[in-house]
């Protein structure tokens, strides 16, 4: 059953066609990877799904619901969470607070209740905290819980961003280059986590990644993108041996 469905999506920036008549769908429970050279339009696809960009044409649906009728902040309510290619954390807050913002879509208390810190607020806070602590345990973030983001190393920030997305309890997780800039060990950790996210938590993952080792290790299906259009789609092995993909990569490399 497909959870996310993109049909004939097109987006232009001035003269640049960033996404060109692209269609694909992500099935519930799978890890789906998008690969492609820089500037292929991978992040743009994410931004379209997050509703940051308005497509020129195309249909987007999530679990049968029309995504285009959602405002950007309503996408999270549907159960879609994401990370960013160039880490977008709340730098002047602690790791714990960052993860708690991930819980924002579960906020049930009103302004008045919060002003007086009514008992319900306290109760809800305990729930949020418990949910966040699960994520902290899962990602081994305990040592950093009360640290400011601004002082953390890059690798840890990447993990915190993943944690924030997980804390929102999503059905679909969008990961934009989760392993870029990570060391070999950190990439290995990321790989186990993505595996566990899918298998233990049952969250569907859509990710953009350059590290083919990671991609073939975790993903069920891969979409190769070039100049905003679909080049190939299939299992990691199929895509890697696809002549058009080899041509695009080697051609770019040889030139």
């Amino acid at each position, binding site marked *: 059953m497909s959870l996310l469905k993109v049909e004939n999506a097109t987006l232009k920036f001035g003269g640049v066609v960033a996404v060109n008549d692209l269609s694909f769908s992500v099935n519930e429970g799978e890890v789906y990877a998008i690969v492609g050279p820089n500037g292929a339009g991978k992040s743009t696809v994410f931004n379209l799904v*997050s509703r*940051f960009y308005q497509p020129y044409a195309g249909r987007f649906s999530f679990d049968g619901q029309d995504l285009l009728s959602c*405002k*950007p*902040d*309503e*996408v*999270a*309510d549907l159960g879609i*969470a*994401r990370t*960013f290619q160039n880490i*977008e*954390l*709340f*730098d*002047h*807050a602690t790791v*714990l*607070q960052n993860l*708690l*913002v*991930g*819980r*924002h*879509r579960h*906020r049930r*208390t009103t*302004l008045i209740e*919060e*002003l*007086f*810190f009514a008992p319900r*607020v*306290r109760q*809800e*806070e*305990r729930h*949020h*905290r*418990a949910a966040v*602590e699960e994520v902290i345990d899962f990602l081994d973030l305990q040592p950093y819980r009360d640290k400011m983001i*601004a*002082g953390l190393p890059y690798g840890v920030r990447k993990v915190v961003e993943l944690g*924030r997305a997980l804390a*929102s309890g999503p059905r679909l997780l969008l990961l934009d280059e989760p392993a870029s800039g990570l060391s070999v060990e950190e990439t290995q950790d990321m790989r186990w986590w993505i595996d566990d996210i899918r298998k233990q938590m049952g969250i569907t993952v859509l990710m953009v990644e350059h590290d083919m080792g990671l991609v073939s290790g975790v993903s069920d299906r891969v979409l190769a993108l070039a100049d905003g259009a679909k080049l190939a789609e299939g299992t990691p092995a199929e895509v890697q041996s696809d002549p058009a993909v080899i041509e695009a990569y080697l051609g770019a490399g040889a030139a």
Partner: protein
Amino acid sequence: MRIQFKTSYDHDIRLFPDRHSLIVYGALILLALVLPFLINEFYIGEVTNVLIWAIAGLGLMLLTGQTGQASLGHAAFLAIGCYTNTILIEQGLPFLLAFPLAGVITGVVGAIIAIPALRLHGIYLAIATIALSILADDIIVLLEPWTGGVSGKFPDVIRVFGMEIERWTMPVRFYYLVLAVAVMCTLFYRNILRSPLGRAFDAVRDSEVSATAMGVHIARTKATAFGLSCMITGWAGALMGYYAGAFNNETFSLVISITLLMMIVIGGLGSIHGAFFGAVVVAFLPQGLSILKDSVLGSGVAIPGLETGVFGMILILFILFEPMGLYGRWLKIRIWFELFPFARKDMFRRQKSYLKTERLR
């Protein structure tokens, strides 16, 4: 050296995280309560002034420190709170109704004004609020039938349950009133900080895109911040009116707006302590300067612009050498003592960061 062990999630949710802070702040409140028995009425008046500035500071801090929107027009909201309170009481409302209402009305007006301003980033918001502050002066004059125009207004004696409160004749009673409002506003502020809304404020401040991705409605959150900020500011304005005893179109000028903003920066952006620290500086700087000037140049010599000039100088020094303000400095000193003798010099090194543009073109 003090070490804390956290034993439950409630540690981070409670009003006072641990017994230590409960004792410290409890003692502080106690001191505030017995203060009138310790110092004379003149100084009680000065402390009242500090508290009123601190309330105003809390109001602006909520906006600037928490959501990162700098307002250079908050004097306009001081004015709205002040005039609304006075007019409501003239209409026959009891103080206990008029005063809270004045804050709420200011908050609603602020949130409505904020709606177009929300789309504005940093500087655009700053200029829009400057314009507001300048316009407020002219608008008060134009609304003469309600506001008394240039001749201004004199607030009536406050009556609460048959008790009269007045700043000059009963400074101690007025002090307790202001203290109560200050404590209430501090509680509101603290409660917001430890609930989802407060975190949404921080999120909006640090990254609008990822806040959106987490389901935070940027415009609504900013408008809420603006409204809450203006509500507290409105209360401060009403109290300022009582403290001054008379006010007109020039009482709440652009200079007051700017002073307020500088005050919270000097105090330390983003913290409740900062509002209070900054208020102490603002309230006592003029006195300190005039004493200094009199002793150096002899009394009677006027130096125009001295106060604002020195204030500006202090602010520049703070931004350069202690961007976290007085509160940041205080924290460092405290940590140094707590860790004694293990503190290292490089512990407080500033993090390098690069400007991330939120600009649209």
